[in-house]
């Protein structure tokens, strides 16, 4: 409870400072919209903002779903095969060095203005934290447990299913929480490279048309989206691994 109050207090301080800076005479209204102007834009342009937000939300949700599927498959495959892990790890890291800003237009050229390029970009950024975290989890399973399973005559697959995967669920969710926060950025990049709709495109357009309050309203919505996705992942974690909390002596 005190945590929530502290967060709220910090937020109030931040908004007040924002309002203060925006009200200074030396600050151009076109550079910085005040919180009040942003709120006005949120109200006046709500239906436009909401329609575009829904498009972006679908891109983010589908992209995240793809990255979870890909991330889990990669992590499990790399866990089961040592040579594959050694060979694929450098490539995984390299995939994160690809400059998305350059890649996005190329994908749009290849796949057109549809949802495809956005999903590809979201998945490309998001599968990485999921794969790396889950792989760490799979590799850090208590060796004694693996010995026990071997003494019980368990097959490799059963050990994976009944011990290693459940034990690394918390790691998977850690990866998912990181992925959830960066997924929105991925979708925005995808839309900037070429799109007919979406919050990212709306923000870019608003910028060009000097509609600064609308740009800020869009940014606020994108931020809220990332925070909500993070909270959702945290909630899912709590529901999926309640034992993880009991175990830890606070």
């Amino acid at each position: 409870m005190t945590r929530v109050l502290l967060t709220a207090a910090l937020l109030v301080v931040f908004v007040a400072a924002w309002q203060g800076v925006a009200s200074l005479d030396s600050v151009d209204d076109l550079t910085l919209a005040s919180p009040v102007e942003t709120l006005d834009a949120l109200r006046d342009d709500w239906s436009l903002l909401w329609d575009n937000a829904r498009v972006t939300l679908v891109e983010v949700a589908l992209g995240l779903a793809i990255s979870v599927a890909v991330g889990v498959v990669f992590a499990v495959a790399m866990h089961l095969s040592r040579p594959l892990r050694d060979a694929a790890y450098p490539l995984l890291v390299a995939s994160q060095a690809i400059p998305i800003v350059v890649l996005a237009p190329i994908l749009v050229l290849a796949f057109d203005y549809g949802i495809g390029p956005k999903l590809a970009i979201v998945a490309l950024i998001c599968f990485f934290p999921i794969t790396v975290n889950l792989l760490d989890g799979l590799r850090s399973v208590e060796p004694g447990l693996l010995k026990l399973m071997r003494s019980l005559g368990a097959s490799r697959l059963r050990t994976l299913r009944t011990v290693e995967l459940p034990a690394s669920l918390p790691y998977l969710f850690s990866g998912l929480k990181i992925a959830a926060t960066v997924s929105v950025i991925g979708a925005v990049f995808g839309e900037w490279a070429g799109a007919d709709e979406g919050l990212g495109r709306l923000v870019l357009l608003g910028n060009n048309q000097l509609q600064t309050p609308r740009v800020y309203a869009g940014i606020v919505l994108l931020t809220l989206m990332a925070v909500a996705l993070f909270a959702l992942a945290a909630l899912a974690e709590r529901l999926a691994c309640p034992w993880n909390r009991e175990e830890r002596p606070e």
Partner: protein
Amino acid sequence: MSTKVEAPVPEPLSLERNGVELTGVSRSFGAITALEGLDLRVRPGEVMAVVGPSGCGKSTLLEIVAGLQEPDAGSARAGAGPSASSAATRRAACAYMPQRDLLLPWRDALGNAALALECQGVARAEARRRAEPLFERFGLADFERSRPAELSGGMRQRVAFLRTLLPGRPVLLLDEPFGALDAITRGSMQEWLAGALLAEPRTVLLVTHDVEEAVFLADRVAIMSARPGRIVATLHVPLPRPRRLTDARLVELRAAALEALA
């Protein structure tokens, strides 16, 4: 703990042919020689305790018998038949209870007890159904749905015992089963295990560093030297069961064992 334990075993055990035999076993980890030229025989149906100082290679010894490690030199046999020296046969013959209970925190007690059966290919629901009737006899009634974090140390240990005993393997390997328990719980668990083994005899190799526990539970007590571990003496405990810890002869044997250890 006066809980009566009946055989949770699907078929009768052929104790006559299921012993343990280690001959000239050596095992090193890098520069550390854990075991050197160790000989040990456990007769079928016998309870053998192994006592020794910490780090002398007791867990290593059990893991070799259990088929989880191979000796660098010498041979290990457990179970029956001509193939008893292969690791796979040893694994199949032995029920191994590790030093820590290693319960799965996301499974309830029943699910943890059923794990061993599942690993033998029994469907999960069926395995749980078979484990359930034993909870009462193990003093765990009404805790079937509790997760390990909600159980006391003694109860967790009993769930681990249940998991170990359920597949009905003839050779029981126990690695300091009560080492992590407080003195009072340990005492009642020792009595409980004595009762369980009386009701359902098995070939038992029990590792402990508690000499009192060894003479209370075992037919014979093997004394191990500090690293590199070897058996330096073997004591017979020719006392009838049920035994009492306060029995004068038991106290005498305990003193003799302590002397052999020193």
